[in-house]
């Protein structure tokens, strides 16, 4: 594996590359195409943190744990709750901030706070010619030119190798409560979660665990405000009980570890039960994002895109080896993304085959 020590060395390596490169941060997603692994792990370190401006700049290989510790020391956090997929992938490398943005992965709070890409303010990256490209910046509002910054979020390194990212952070809520409603089926659960998420009471997590027939709502905010909010939610949707809940386990899909190929589906929440009804026999599942995210573990080789049928949305395979990982794009969109990859990486160096 190649691990350049700085952006300049990385640029030279890419410019001189004569074959495919498997772009990786910490390797915690356990994915990548053929080719020489090239890691940003040594491009590490927080380069700027202004808590009063809610902004941080860090090199792409900075461990996520280091970022989260620095933020916690100032009472701030990454609102989109980046997942740690290692329990599922079995990978050992530590997640990096570059990997968080390159994969645009977001946890339970995404349903109200926004995705990783919504907090990304600026990037530096190396394109397929070995040129250093800068886009965005470190200010919270910026519409200067084409937004390559958020284009890089979710591109899985196929358009360039991130070397530095700047992003918005937020004050960490003072307190959290989890409330449970039990004995629901999937359809009842998504209906209740829709009511909760459509209320102004500050719900920041809405999950349904079918094996316990348990719907969970998370409220976050000032300690003094939570009792009143709990009361209002209960008045809206019924008798809630306070429950203990490990939201990090929901975030990471841990309940599905070892249960087969793990898939993540993105759906309109209310359609989620209809997809559940179409899952292959023996599949295990749970819902996050009020039903908008369906986590499924199915027998190896299952293709959950078939379960979607005519229902709008998409499915991505997180673990397992059978078939394509990403949902095929509609032809018009695929033509655009293919052309973009050719423009940014004309020699097809970066993670070839990633989306095929």
């Amino acid at each position, binding site marked *: 594996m190649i691990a350049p020590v700085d952006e300049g060395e990385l640029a030279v390596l890419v410019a001189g590359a004569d074959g495919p490169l498997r772009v990786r941060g910490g390797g915690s997603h356990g994915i990548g195409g053929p080719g020489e692994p090239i890691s940003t792990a040594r491009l590490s370190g927080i380069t700027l943190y*202004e808590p009063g401006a809610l902004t941080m700049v860090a090199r792409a290989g900075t461990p996520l744990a280091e970022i989260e510790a620095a933020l916690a020391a100032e009472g701030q956090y990454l609102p989109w709750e980046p997942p740690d997929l290692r329990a599922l992938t079995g990978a050992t490398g530590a997640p990096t901030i570059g990997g968080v943005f390159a994969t645009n992965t977001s946890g339970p709070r995404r349903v109200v706070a926004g995705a990783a890409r919504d907090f990304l303010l600026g990037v530096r990256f190396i394109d397929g010619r070995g040129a250093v490209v*800068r886009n965005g910046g470190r200010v919270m509002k*910026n519409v200067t030119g084409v937004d390559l910054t958020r*284009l890089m979020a979710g591109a899985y390194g196929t358009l360039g190798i991130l070397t530095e990212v700047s992003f918005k952070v*937020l004050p960490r809520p003072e307190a959290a409560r989890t409330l449970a409603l039990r004995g629901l089926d999937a359809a009842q659960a998504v209906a209740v979660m829709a009511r909760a998420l459509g209320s102004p009471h500050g719900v920041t997590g809405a999950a349904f665990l079918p094996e316990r027939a348990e719907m969970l709502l998370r409220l976050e905010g000032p300690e003094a405000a939570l009792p009143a909010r709990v009361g209002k939610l209960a008045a809206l949707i019924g008798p809630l009980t306070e429950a203990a809940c490990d939201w990090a386990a929901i975030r990471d899909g841990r309940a599905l570890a070892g249960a087969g190929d793990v898939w993540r589906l993105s759906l309109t929440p209310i359609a989620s039960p209809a997809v559940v009804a179409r899952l292959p026999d023996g599949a295990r599942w749970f819902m996050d994002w009020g039903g*908008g995210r369906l986590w499924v573990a199915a027998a190896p080789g299952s293709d959950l895109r078939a379960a979607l049928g005519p229902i709008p949305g998409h499915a991505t395979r997180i673990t397992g080896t059978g078939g394509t990982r990403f949902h095929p794009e509609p032809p*018009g*969109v695929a033509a655009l993304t293919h052309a973009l990859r050719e423009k940014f990486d004309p020699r097809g160096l970066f993670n070839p085959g990633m989306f095929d």
Partner: protein
Amino acid sequence: MDMPAPDPRILARKAHVAARLRAALDGARVIDAPQDVIAYECDALSAYACPPLAVVLPETTAQVAAAMRVCHEEGVPVVPRGSGTSLVGGALPTADAVVIGLSAMTAVLETDFDNRFIRVQAGRTNLSVTGAIEAQGFFYAPDPSSQLACAIGGNIAMNSGGAHCLKYGVTVNNLLGVTLVLADGTVVEIGGPWMDAPGIDLLPVICGSEGQFGIVTEAVLRIVPRPEGARPVLVAFDSAEAAGATVSAIIRAGLLPVAVEYMDRPCIRACEAHARAGYPDCEAMLIIEVEGAEPEIAAQIAAIRAIAARHAPLEFREARDADEAARIWLGRKAAFGAMGRIADYICLDGVIPVSALPQVLARTAQLAAEYGLEVANVFHAGDGNLHPLILFNANDPDDLHRAEALGADILRLCVEAGGCLTGEHGVGVEKRDLMEVQFAPADLEAQMRVKDVFDPHWRLNPAKVFPLHLSAARRGAA
């Protein structure tokens, strides 16, 4: 500001192009009489104007696609237009261009409260999107000052913000999907009413592409529940430093107001003369709005009061009822109109890190003095998005020239402070020639490659965003 000379071959074929558009558009309006196309010669940056070849006002995505196909086949440039409220010439035509306007596409196509989205035609105005959902307790969050008039399609093209985006984000953060008509008339659906893309996400490059990548005809927008209540406070200070330090301390304390607006003395005086909102006559004033349930509002205001007290405020005024809340916002919302009463002005849109606020304001005042011009400041302080208003006399060409030069200097100052040229208005033609202040050649080349993908012949909204000398080869090849 230069624009490329119109193509005489296209001008000579005007009647032919208009006839083809009429035939293709099946009853939708095609405007080509010289006295009628005048209405589309400019947007809200009225210093620049040029009547287009023709204007079409389609009613459906299929009609937009048909018009785009005709223009593609005829090699005619296309200028997309929402409501024409751009402050940067985003909808400024060239004489050889067809304007495709969205004003006849205003329908609500779908509202879904359980899944929390609305699907609209892109000509619908920002405020009327909220109008379609507010009875059910929801609203559409981005709120540009022009929200009564501006179209969602224009908001998407410019990635518009507003006073409340400190909490709710700008357009890109509230956009779930679009129907996009490409330059050759191809229609693509990107995204949808779910929360992420399967891989490469094209929405962020389409949002903010300033009409250069295609025309958005329909949009799926995230809707959010309206908070139980909201209340503004007004805090007056005798220095910009004290106001700036208060803003930073509020954010630092973990409070997240929905809006933090700043006005300086020249702006306050102009607003008072115009709107009589009862503002104090002071060096700097903040309007801070918080929201939530009543006890939470009270707690947040108490915390803000305590923080402000450490910076020697001249006055801390809390709205006691809806009428007082409206009066606090009255002057701010009238600010641009109020400034327009006393002089012509150029409204800038630079962004700086919040921590640089006092230095940048002080340097702005110095620069203004050097140019012999007055600058009034009204802006979104929570996110560092400045709107310096440079006052000048438009009837004096020298005055205009100096005002533009001062504006460029202030924007350079923003970039040097770690910020950017534009936070929510866009580049358009206004800041096109300053792009090299912020970006290196490789940065702009990468951006232009995205345009190559969406618009290989460079015919959509020509001569915007990229400095002409950088785009010349691409436009010439078209």
